[in-house]
């Protein structure tokens, strides 16, 4: 990718003050609307009113809010008590109207996206691009030929207005708000995000990217992405996340719902590099019908704490999924991850690969689940968990969970833990590399096979970001 794009991601990592990077001299530009404080019915109604939502959506929000009040705090979450939900801004509408032209965005915003190299990326490699800033989608566009084929790429809010029946069919159906407290909170406060619909038989050749940006501190971001691939279609969606460094923390509680109809393929790639004060909570789930396939690739580098569990329900026979999750915890940070697969139908196949890297006191937790329901004849699942621990202060915990109720099913599990020894480190430093450079080589080697899963432009960025993480710059903050 553009050198410049790499450079700006480098600056973000360096922890240079965000106003400096963004060209803001004092503080972030004023928002048009900012709703903060206690999460109440009137707050939720206000969001719905600003968005001029139809009644069904308003009621869906309020029902989710009721669930949020009722559901207990999940016990498996650690560290989340730090979040004072009442202190967050729950909805921040930037002073920008949704547009399909970069030129229409406010100067500061356009410049920021230009620095990130997004317009260039869009022109060269993407079928479509969606940019979410704070709580709203500010930009979305796709290539003309896809429009003619009936592909839809829109901010979810626009889709709610224009294609209500289509949205209704899937929205909060793949991932019901009753699942847990934060899914319910998401249902109540969701804002911004992407709607993608690919009609039967259409193959979207180049990926579509959505780029999410948290522009200020103490903000909750609740974007929602809904990807629907109709029969026999193909789409690759890339989710890129970034937040410049601010004092104080931000809370991200996004959701991705994916629905692959018969023989369709959805590929979802996420590269997450939020800054070190973002608590990143993800709700990701897909449903695969007969012969369909859903692939997840998740590279989780940044944030203070990340909770991410890409999940697939293999609903139709011969459906399959492959989920690759890579997490890096370098420093006093936590990544809690784990792919989940539920085999419902016969002849379904799944493969889970999880790779974690722990350094400088970082902690990785793997909590994967494979469930094979009775009747899922000849289902097969394979789980691979590799942990790399780079020093004595860092930790990796693995809690795989398999529940197999079908006697003809086949499940295999491999787990490996590698620790960097003093002798290995000495060897590499004796060739002229610093400890951190030596570690970055080991990490890149550990991730080598995964890099091949990414489009080459993104692999290059990830490559560079990992080297930066292990440079002196990465040690800041």
């Amino acid at each position, binding site marked *: 990718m553009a050198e410049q794009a790499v450079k700006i991601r480098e600056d973000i990592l360096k922890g240079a003050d965000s106003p400096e990077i963004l060209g803001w001299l004092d503080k972030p530009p004023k928002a048009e609307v900012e709703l903060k404080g206690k999460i109440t019915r009137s707050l939720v109604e206000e969001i719905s009113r600003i968005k001029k939502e139809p009644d069904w959506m308003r009621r869906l929000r309020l029902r989710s809010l009721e669930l949020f009040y009722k559901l207990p705090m999940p016990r498996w979450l650690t560290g989340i008590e730090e979040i004072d939900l009442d202190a967050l801004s729950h909805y921040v509408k930037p002073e920008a109207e949704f547009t399909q032209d970069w030129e229409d965005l406010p100067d500061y915003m356009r410049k920021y996206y230009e620095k990130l190299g997004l317009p260039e990326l869009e022109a060269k490699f993407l079928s479509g691009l969606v940019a979410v800033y704070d709580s709203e989608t500010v930009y979305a566009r796709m290539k003309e030929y896809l429009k003619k084929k009936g592909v839809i790429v829109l901010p979810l809010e626009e889709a709610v207005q224009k294609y209500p029946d289509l949205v209704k069919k899937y929205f909060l159906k793949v991932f019901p708000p009753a699942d847990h407290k934060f899914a319910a909170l998401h249902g109540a406060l969701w804002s911004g995000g992407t709607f993608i619909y690919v009609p039967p038989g259409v193959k979207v050749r180049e990926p579509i990217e959505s780029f999410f940006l948290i522009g200020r501190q103490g903000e909750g971001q609740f974007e929602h992405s809904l990807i629907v691939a109709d029969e026999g279609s193909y789409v690759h969606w890339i989710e890129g996340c970034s937040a410049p460094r601010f004092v104080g923390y931000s809370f991200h509680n996004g959701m991705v719902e994916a629905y692959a109809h018969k023989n369709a393929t959805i590929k979802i790639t996420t590269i997450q590099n939020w800054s070190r004060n973002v608590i990143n909570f993800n709700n990701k789930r897909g449903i695969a019908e007969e012969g369909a396939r859903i692939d997840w690739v998740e590279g989780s580098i940044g944030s203070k704490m990340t909770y991410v569990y890409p999940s697939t329900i293999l609903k139709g026979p011969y459906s399959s999924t492959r989920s690759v999750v890579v997490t890096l915890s370098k420093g006093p940070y936590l990544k809690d991850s784990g792919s989940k697969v539920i085999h419902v139908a016969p002849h379904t196949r799944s493969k889970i690969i999880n790779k974690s890297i722990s350094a400088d006191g970082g902690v990785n937790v793997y909590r994967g689940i494979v469930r094979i329901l009775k009747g899922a004849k000849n289902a097969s699942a394979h789980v691979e968990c590799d942990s790399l621990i780079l020093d004595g202060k860092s930790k990796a915990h693995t809690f795989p969970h398999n529940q197999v109720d079908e006697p003809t099913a086949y499940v295999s599990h491999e787990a490996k833990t*590698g620790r960097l*020894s*003093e*002798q*290995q480190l*000495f*060897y*590499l*430093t*004796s*060739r*002229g*590399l*610093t400890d951190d*450079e030596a570690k*970055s*080589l*080991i990490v*890149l*080697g*550990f991730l*080598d096979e995964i890099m091949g899963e990414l489009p080459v432009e993104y692999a290059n960025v990830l*490559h*560079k970001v990992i*080297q930066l993480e292990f*440079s002196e710059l990465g040690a800041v903050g």
Partner: protein
Amino acid sequence: MSKGLEVVDLHVNVHGKKVLKGVTLNVGYGTIHAIMGPNGSGKSTLAYTIMGREGYEVERGDIRLDGESILDLPTEERALKGLFMALQDPPQIPGVRLTTLMIAALNKRQGSSDLTRVRDPKIVRRMYSLAEELGLSRDLLQREINVGFSGGEKKRSELLQALILEPRIIILDEPDSGLDVDGVRKVSEYLVNLKEQGRGIMLITHYARMFKYVKPDMVTVLIDGRVAVQGGPELADLVEERGYAYIRRRYVEGKDSTI
């Protein structure tokens, strides 16, 4: 200012145990200095201490390169100043290819921030042709470092790195162990070459068999962490003929330190 590597009255503790008890020696450019001694005499400790390995504490004395102390430098800076050590039994580094390491080490020397990028394809071609000359298969360069390497392949890979990185001082810890006769001859040829190029070579070896092919300019015999005796190549012959027990009786217990 003296040129090359100087070790001055070096006392070293390894994990609390006193291993070197006053070692003084020089490795000048364009010379080969053989360090001999029985097992446990402190040969490898000397090499690791020169490279600044963690856990090798210098209690007294100094290590200098071209007259300047390098004691306070971390290992990588010693390497960048031109020191290189070929390990006796180098560790496996899963995930890292041999070419990747050499490219990273070269990029570092050229001050590049992206360690993995190949800046000059010529250097990769050079790696392949050198590997071939050393009798290493081409695919070995693309393999993870030392993973599944035979003893001989490890030795050759260490030497290959030394040839690519072009250090000024090369410390080889038992480069002959695990090699067959042809291998020993091959490695020796390269050492003679490196010496002729003006590099300083510290050749640590237990046996004198290498000296058939590569004549040391200086020989130091270490016993119990001390220099038992120093001399010319004839000292190596003496060790070969009479063994370390004789050297110990004559030079350590007999207090006679000349030949």
